[in-house]
């Protein structure tokens, strides 16, 4: 039963992903708000599906079945983080994710979002942003990579505060430095060419 609901959730998550992937297209950059709105709509479906998932098992046995939805929950955390970043260029708080997905922050109140899953979602977003930085240059948007760089650097120092154990989350965190490096290279490329400051005089089509 749980598995069935989770499968439906995964399908919706992929739909959201497909909508958001189009921001990588050159034409997609102008349509970011529209894409986000569409993604938000799909999150409504996610909320009803989440509500259904909650009915499938007793609340106190969350961790017994955790593995079943862990993957999709991380994905959803990533997607909500990505939407929020595209909208406001800020990091989602855990509360916001929880609100978008229609679940709880703390364990006592019912179906909640584990910290690790939240952090994993944020890390997935980091690599997506590294890609976005590259593609925004291709699309002629030279200021975005610098904003992304600042954001990712902040994120990186944030993660450095954490004492991670040798677990999947740690492994994923190790990937972050490559994302940081990639974005730094983009910023470097832009700044030695003087494209960093004056986006309007640069290579606009």
């Amino acid at each position, binding site marked *: 039963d749980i598995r069935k609901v989770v*499968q439906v959730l*995964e*399908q919706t998550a*992929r*739909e959201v*992903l*497909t909508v958001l*992937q*189009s921001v*990588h*297209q*050159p034409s997609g950059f102008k349509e970011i708000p529209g894409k986000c709105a569409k993604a938000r709509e799909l999150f409504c479906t996610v909320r009803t599906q989440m509500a259904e998932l909650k009915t499938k098992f007793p609340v106190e046995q969350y961790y017994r079945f955790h593995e079943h939805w862990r993957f999709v929950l991380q994905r959803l955390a990533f997607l909500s983080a990505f939407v929020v970043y595209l909208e406001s260029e800020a990091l989602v708080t855990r509360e916001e994710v929880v609100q978008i997905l229609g679940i709880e922050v703390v364990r006592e109140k019912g179906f909640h979002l584990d910290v690790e899953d939240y952090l994993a979602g944020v890390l997935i977003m980091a690599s997506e942003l590294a*890609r976005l930085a*590259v*593609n925004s*240059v*291709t699309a*002629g948007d030279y200021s975005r990579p610098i904003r992304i760089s600042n954001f990712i650097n902040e994120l990186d120092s944030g993660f450095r505060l954490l004492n991670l154990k040798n677990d999947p989350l740690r492994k994923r965190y190790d990937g972050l430095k490559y994302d940081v490096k990639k974005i730094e290279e*983009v910023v470097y*490329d*832009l700044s030695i*060419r003087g*494209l960093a400051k004056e986006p309007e*005089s*640069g*290579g*606009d*089509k």
Partner: protein
Amino acid sequence: PCTQRKDILHKDASAVMTNTVVGGIMVSYDFFQQELDTRHDKYERLVKISRDVTIESKRTIFLLHRVTSVQDTEDLLNEAEAKLDGVRQKIGQIAEELRGEDIYQFHRAFTPGIQEYVEAASFLHYIRHRSLISLEEINARLVFMRTEKADPRGPEALPLGAQVLTFQVTPSDYLLGVADLTGELMRMCISSVGNGDIDTPFQLSQFLRQIHDGFSYIGNTGPYEVSKKLHTLRQSLGKVEDACYALRVRGSEIPKHMLADVFSSRTTIIDPEEGVV
């Protein structure tokens, strides 16, 4: 000859069956042996054809890669088309072998060849039309007219009287072939960068992104191999995006050095502020 033997054996079987049980077992195992041998032979033949299909398709793909550096593309494309016709003949042989059989029973024997064919056919289609060939279009070209002749190889190939023979590419073969296609497109992108072609990489990156989005929509609901390919697809896409990025960044300084050479016959100085592309 085989069918005759079967008949004889059959008579023997009924005769022996009434007498001893042991003999009955022997006879029925004799049948099993025949059945299995026939099946294995067919399987081997299919593997052989499939391998030919793979090789020829690969060559076609190599041929198509020259498209970036050759002047008369049309000739080259026609040559590739001719090669693919040859491949289709081979697939016709597969279809013939499979007549009256359950296609999935022997699927594993020819799936590599078919995937390679899909890859080659879709690559050609992309170069011609800059779009993705559909499964229907592929299947539509795999209809074969049979001139009826006695098939000496398979004893079960009774004249069915079927004149039209079709080969259906399974959806998963199609998907896997398309996933392979992205690898070729990535190579094409890199080589066209090498040739100073600046438009193609951007077109390719858009196209690849669309395929990638399509595949990520399927995600892990598809067959297992598809999700494996998705990973490679991501890498190819990353490379193409990086290439476009490099072009974009370098593009704004190229006018002074390299591109100036390309355009030197026409213009004298290109305004460095004016980006390329």
